[in-house]
C-alpha cells in the first residue's frame, strides 16, 4: 500500500472521477437496455392485450411471428452497434477528462 510511485491524491483516484465515470457508463447502458426491454416485454403484453392485431397476416407470417422470428435480431444489432460506438467514444472522453483533471490538481 505504501508504494512511493503511486500517490492516491491525484484526480483519477478521486471520488469525483469514479462517481462521474460510473454514472455516465450506467446511463448509457440503461438507455440501451430500456430500448431492448420495451420490445422484449412489450411483445408478450401486446400478444396478451391485442391478440387479433398480432395475428394479422403479413406475407404468410402472423405479425407477431414476423417480429419475434425475424425482425427482433436486426433491432438488437442496431442497439448493440450504437452502444459500442458510444462507449468507445465515452472511454476516449474519460481519458481526456483524466488527463485534464490531473493537470488541474497539483
Amino acid at each position: 500500500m505504501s508504494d512511493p510511485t503511486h500517490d492516491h491524491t491525484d484526480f483519477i483516484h478521486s471520488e469525483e472521477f469514479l462517481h462521474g465515470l460510473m454514472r455516465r457508463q450506467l446511463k448509457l447502458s440503461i438507455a440501451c437496455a430500456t430500448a431492448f426491454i420495451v420490445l422484449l416485454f412489450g411483445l408478450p403484453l401486446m400478444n396478451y392485450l391485442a391478440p387479433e392485431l398480432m395475428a394479422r397476416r403479413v406475407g404468410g407470417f402472423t405479425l407477431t411471428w414476423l417480429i419475434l422470428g425475424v425482425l427482433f435480431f436486426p433491432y438488437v444489432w442496431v442497439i448493440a452497434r450504437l452502444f459500442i460506438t458510444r462507449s468507445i467514444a465515452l472511454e476516449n472522453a474519460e481519458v481526456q477528462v483524466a488527463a485534464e483533471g490531473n493537470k488541474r490538481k497539483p
Partner: protein
Amino acid sequence: MNLTALQFLAAASSSKGIDPWILAFSAITVVVTIWMGFRSAKSSKSASDFFVAGRSVSVGWNASAISGEYLSAASFMGIAGMVMLSGYDALWYPVCYACGYLFLLLFIAGPLRRFGAYTIPDFAEGRYDSPVFRKIAVCFVLFIGFFYTMPQMKGAGVTLAYIFPGLPYWVGVLVVGAVITLNVALGGMKGITLVQAVQYWIKMFAISVPIFVLLSVYGGYGKNLSLNKSISDSPPAIVQTVEPGQTERVLPAKAPKDEDWIAPFGPLTTKAAKAAGLTPEESKPYSLLYTFSLIVALVCGTAGLPHILVRFYTNPDGIAAKKTTMWVMILIGVFYVFPPVFGVLGRNLLPELYEATGSKGPDKVVLELPILIREKYGILGSILSGITCAGAFAAFMSTFSGLLVSMTSALAHDVYGRMIRPQSSPEERMKMFKWCAVLVGSVSVLLGAMVEPLEINFMVGQAFAIAAASYFPLLFMSVWWRGMTMKGAATGMLTGGLCALFSAALVNASTLALDKGPMGKLFAGFSGINDFWVAHPLLRILAEQPAIWSVPLSIGLMIVVSNATRKTIPVDVRMKMLVLHAPEALGLKQEYIQEHQGPAH
C-alpha cells in the same frame, strides 16, 4: 459395453439401414475435430495455454469460437423440435439466446474484461479478497455445467440413433462422450478455440444450406406458416393458401391444433393450466407469467454462463472484447433465424414425428427433413441430411468440449490447484487436468443417459435459469454496486441459485416419472408430485420457470445482507471500482496488481 456397441453397428449396417452419405459426412466432422485437437495439443504446452489460450486470440477467431461454443445441440436440434411441438412460444428461446448477449455487452463484458481474471471464481475472489467465496463460486460452474451437458448428451444420443438405426440411445451418449472427453484431455483450450471457430461455420453451413434447398422445393417460410390457420383468418383465405393438387395435410391426434400452435400462449406455456382444467381464458394470465419468466431466465442466464464468460478473457483488450460481442451477436442472430424454419416445415411435412417420443420424436426433425428431398432429387437428399448430421455433431461436440474445459478447469485450477494442493507443480496440475476431464466426462455421460424423455431445449432453458439466479446477480451487482460485501454476494448467489436448481430438478424428476420406459421406473417415487402440480398450476409454472422469482430473490438478498454487513465492504473498493470502470489506457490495472502483490510478497 464396447462389444454390444460393435454388435449393434454390425447388425445395423448389414440390414442396410445406414445411409453412406450421412455416415461419411458425420465421420468427417468427427475426424477433423479430433485431428485438430491433437494437432494443436502439440503447440499448447504451458498451463496458461491450457486455461485461456495465452490470451492472444483475434476478434474474428474469438467471435466465431464463442458462437461455435454457444450454438449447442439445443440451438441446432432442440429449437426446431420445440417449434414443431409447441409453435410460437418456442420462438422465445432462439430470440433470447441471441439477445441475452446484449445484456452481457451492456452491463458485464467491458468491466469484467478490465478486471482481468481467468474465470468467474477468479473474479469472485479478486473482487472480495476472499478465497472462501471462490470455493462457493466454483460449485456453480459445476452445477450449471452438468445441467447444460445433459441436453448435449441427448443430442448426441438422438443423432447416433438416427445415423445407426437400431442403436440404443445410451450407446450414442457413451461413444460421443468418450470421444470428446479424450479430445479435451489431450488438447486443452488452445485446440478448442480453433475447433470451435471452425465448427461455427460448419453449423452455419449445415443449417442454412438445407433450409434454402427445402424452401425452394416446398415453398417459402411465410407460405408454410400460412398453412396454419389462425384466429384472425377468414375462411376463404385458407382455401387460397392450399394450392391445386396439394391435399390438405392431416395432423396426428397428438399434434397441437393450428390455432394453438401459431398463436402466442400455446401448448408450451398453457400446459400446467390445462392440466389443472382451467379454461383457455383463465389460463392466459398463467401463460403470460410463464413467458415473462422464460424471458428473464434466458436473457439473464446468457450473462451468467460459465463457459462463455471465460472467453472474454481471451480478448487482447476491452475494446476488442466489445467488438467480439458485436460479432457474436450478428453470427448467432443470423443462425437463429433458421432453426424455427425447420420446425415450421416439419409440422407440414413430417407430422408423423408427433406420434413418437424420446430419441425418435420431434427433436430429430432437423436430421430427418432433408431426407425428404431424396424422393424428388435422389442422392441430394442424402447429402443434405449428411450435412445436417455433420452440423449436429459439430453442435454437441463443440458445446460439450467448451463445458468440459470450463468444468475441468474449475476442478483442476480451483479445487485441486488452490484448495487441495496449492503447492503442486505445473506438471502435476496438467496431469490433474486430464484426470478431471475424464471424471467430468464420465458423470456427464451417466447423466446424459438418463434424460432421453426430456426435451433438449427445455433442459438448456433450465441451465440458463440456474445461471440467471446465481452468476448473473453476482456479476451484475459486483460490477455496479460498491456496497456489496462478500457475505451478501454469497448469500444471494447460493439461495437464488440453489432454489432454481432444486425446482428445476423437481420438475425433471416428476416428468421422468411419467415416462413409460426404464426411466419411469427409476423415478417412480416422484410421480406423486404430478398430482400436486395438477392441483397447483401456478406453483408448477413457478417451479418450471423459476427465474421470475429466483433472480429478484437473489438480488434482494444481496442488498439486504450487504447492508447488514456494511462493515466488511472491502477497504480498497474504490480502487477495485476504478479498475472495473476506468478506461484501460489509464493503466490502473497494472497499478492495482502491483499494490495487491506488494504486501503478499
